[in-house]
């Protein structure tokens, strides 16, 4: 490792948005066959740095060297040509094309006429690549039918097909379940063996310690240092990252739990959810765990009125609810933070103020808006959740991933009369410091007597926050556990069903 060649070198990269200096002379280096982790708080500049490397964003100053050669004008096209591929979270694949067509997109193999696409050949080659990676996906499935994890795998296959020398992962595991995370990490090791250089961004420090060779810490756009992972411990890293010690397990305060407040009875939807019943008490956090695809998200979207159940009912304070749409759910005091924020929550092209007060206006039902009051509400939310936002006109898509999540979560805090909060992966993409803030917030809600349903794939989160844990498997809630000394391994066994 020590004497392997350097493939990527970034020197004194500066990036400025408006008056906000996002990267302050950051330097970064990647060697062949190295897994170089990049960590830092939300808004530290990680995504921006790799976007500069992949040509999606152009730096204000600084130099990019690929295999020792200075690249003056990096563009996405040139980056691909130089062997730099990025595996994005919200994948860049075309849903209506097959796996093979996606892998070959832009460089279709043609038959000798030079005009018709050679499907068989493409499928054949794709199958080889996928098999070599140990990925069990047929090349002629439509990408739209794949899960997030599978889509990421296809992106990796696509990168390899393009002879990638560098593969960048930006929070690849934040929407993956346990098994999938494991598979992905094996795959990443596999790529490393092939001599590919890997840049790996994640908020899960355990992954860094398991995978990484070196780790670089960014804070407020500054490089706080690069370390050999072997020679560094967690507290050094968190100290450099957030400026204080943080533990991976959150110690939740004890909250008094009251009477039953929310009741879910025999909820069913053919082929998706089978006869699920459970209840949540006042001040209780009811965790829902399970593998990806076990029906967790479908279950909560039925409670919120997005999907209509064939049978079953939702009761709040003993009253049976008629919920035909999210509008009814909200009127009955149900809040919902969805997992896929870009698709289901963010008003793209609108600013942070509008994005954070949308629910407030629906609850108040005032036809005329009070813009001053709105701004104050937004500011108080920004302060409370320490959202990194530079001004009131900043668009939601211009925030970093974790800060977007905070705004999406924050918009529900203005609903004073809410009874039930449903959080689907509440800390997706959120840094470890901010994660504690969100846990604190959930604890406060519980103390106010709210009921909380929390779907989570993050084991430490599930175990440290839940009062009880409902385990979902194949659309059924097979068990409800009191959270007393539950071990991660036991839970996983229940999830998988062995």
């Amino acid at each position, binding site marked *: 490792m020590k004497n392997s060649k350097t493939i990527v070198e970034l020197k004194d990269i500066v990036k400025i948005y*408006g*008056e906000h200096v996002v990267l302050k002379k950051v330097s970064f280096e990647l060697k062949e066959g190295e897994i170089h982790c990049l960590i830092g708080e939300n808004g530290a500049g990680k995504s921006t740095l790799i976007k500069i490397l992949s040509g999606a964003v*152009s730096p204000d100053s600084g130099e990019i060297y690929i295999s020792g050669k200075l690249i*003056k*004008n990096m563009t996405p096209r040139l980056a691909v040509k130089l062997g730099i591929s990025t595996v994005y979270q919200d994948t860049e694949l075309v849903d209506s094309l097959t796996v093979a067509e996606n892998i070959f997109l832009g460089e279709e193999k043609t038959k000798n006429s030079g005009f018709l696409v050679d499907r068989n050949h493409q499928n054949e080659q794709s199958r080889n690549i996928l098999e070599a990676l140990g990925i069990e996906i047929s090349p002629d499935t439509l990408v739209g039918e794949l899960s997030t994890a599978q889509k990421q795998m296809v992106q990796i296959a696509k990168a390899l097909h393009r002879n990638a020398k560098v593969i960048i992962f930006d929070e690849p595991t934040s929407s993956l379940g346990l098994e999938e995370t494991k598979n992905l990490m094996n795959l990443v090791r596999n790529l490393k063996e092939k001599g590919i250089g890997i840049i790996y961004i994640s908020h899960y420090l355990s992954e860094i310690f398991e995978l990484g060779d070196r780790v670089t810490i960014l804070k407020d756009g500054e490089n706080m240092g690069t370390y050999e992972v072997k020679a560094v411990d967690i507290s050094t890293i968190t100290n450099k990252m957030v400026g204080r010690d943080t533990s991976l397990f959150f110690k939740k305060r004890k909250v008094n739990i009251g009477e039953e407040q929310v009741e879910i009875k025999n909820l069913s939807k053919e082929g998706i959810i089978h006869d699920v019943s459970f209840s949540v008490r006042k001040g209780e956090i009811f965790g829902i765990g399970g593998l990806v695809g076990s029906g967790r998200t479908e279950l909560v979207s039925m409670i*919120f009125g*997005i999907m209509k159940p064939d049978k079953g009912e939702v009761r709040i304070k003993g009253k049976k609810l008629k919920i035909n*749409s*999210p*509008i009814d759910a*909200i*009127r009955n005091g149900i809040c*919902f933070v*969805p997992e896929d924020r870009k*698709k*289901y*929550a*963010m*008003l*793209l*092209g*609108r600013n*942070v*103020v*509008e994005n954070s007060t*949308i*629910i407030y*206006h*629906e609850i108040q*039902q*005032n*036809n*005329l*808006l009070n*813009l*001053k009051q709105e*701004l*104050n509400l*937004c*500011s108080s939310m*920004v*302060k409370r959740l320490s959202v990194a*936002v*530079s*001004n*009131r*006109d*900043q668009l939601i898509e211009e925030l970093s991933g974790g800060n977007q999540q905070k705004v999406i979560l924050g*918009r529900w805090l203005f609903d004073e009369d809410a009874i039930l909060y449903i959080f689907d992966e509440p800390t997706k993409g959120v840094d470890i410091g901010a994660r504690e803030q969100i846990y604190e917030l959930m604890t406060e809600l519980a103390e106010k007597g709210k009921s909380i349903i929390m779907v989570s794939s993050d084991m430490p989160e599930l175990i440290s926050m839940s009062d009880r844990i409902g385990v979902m498997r194949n659309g059924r809630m097979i068990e409800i556990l009191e959270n007393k000394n539950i071990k991660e391994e036991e839970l996983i066994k229940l999830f998988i069903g062995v």
Partner: protein
Amino acid sequence: MLNSLSNEILPKGKKSIFKNQWFFLLLAEVVLAIITGVINSRFFTLSNLTNILEQIAVLGILASGMTALIISGEIDISVGANVGLVTCVIAMMIKNDISYLWVVIIAILLSSFNSFLVGASSIAFKAPSFIVSLGFLSIFRGTAYAITKGVFQTIYGKFEALGLTRIGGLLPLGFLIGIIIYFAIHFILKYTRLGRHIYAVGSNSTAAYLSGISVVKTKLYAFLLNGFLIGIASMILLSRIGAAQPTTGTGMELKAIGAVVIGGTPLSGGKGNIFGTFLGVLLMGMISNTLNMLRVNPYFQEVVFGLFIVAALAVSAFSSYKGTFKKKLLKS
């Protein structure tokens, strides 16, 4: 106290004016005015300037409705045909000496109903409003032919107040109505919940739905609002030209859409404002006027008009490149 806090945490964003679409529009308008004025000094006469204002009143009202509709993520290309049908119907009413009160009521009801039909069909059949309104374009135009039997409907000397009054002998009443409508739409978009709904639905309708907003209602309101304004525009138009025929209003939707887009409201929805539209309409009006002033051959005018629209769009595309373009120029 709270206010100073919010100013501290969320200060106003500072945006360079070179990144603002309206800066370029205004610039284009000033340059155009100077050039035309130099070539033909009649351009800056009071009568010509009020002429321009009178001519852009109708387009401005149509473009205002179109702005809200496009922000909501929809579009209506039957607007011109709708204007044609409404002007024919009310012209026939006026010819038959039906009271003006009924004329006004029918104009607004009919145009709103037409627009509502377009919106409701598009929503009910889950078809893009572009296609649906293309169908309705034919229906409206055809109906106008059927009821007029293709005959020119003139109303000489009647119903003139709306289109020909000049307040203080100077300011055209139609233009004043237009200005009031700009302000009204601005108010709706910025200060009402309906306005927020329009932006939210156009930006991400799924997210809007999950936030408790009725997407269907919001879109129908946007269509109705557009229809209402089409009614007003039709009356002003008829009053000004004193006659109607089935082809009246042809192509107006394209000019309105052009003005909206030049004004910085993208067809993809969720963004934009009425001030840009106002400048877009003004530019359109000035171009027409300039072409007349410079005595450009009418056949050729269409071509020049189209070129201007393309040029304006090119400028706005460059300005939204946000300096990356400039940087590339500097580097190479």
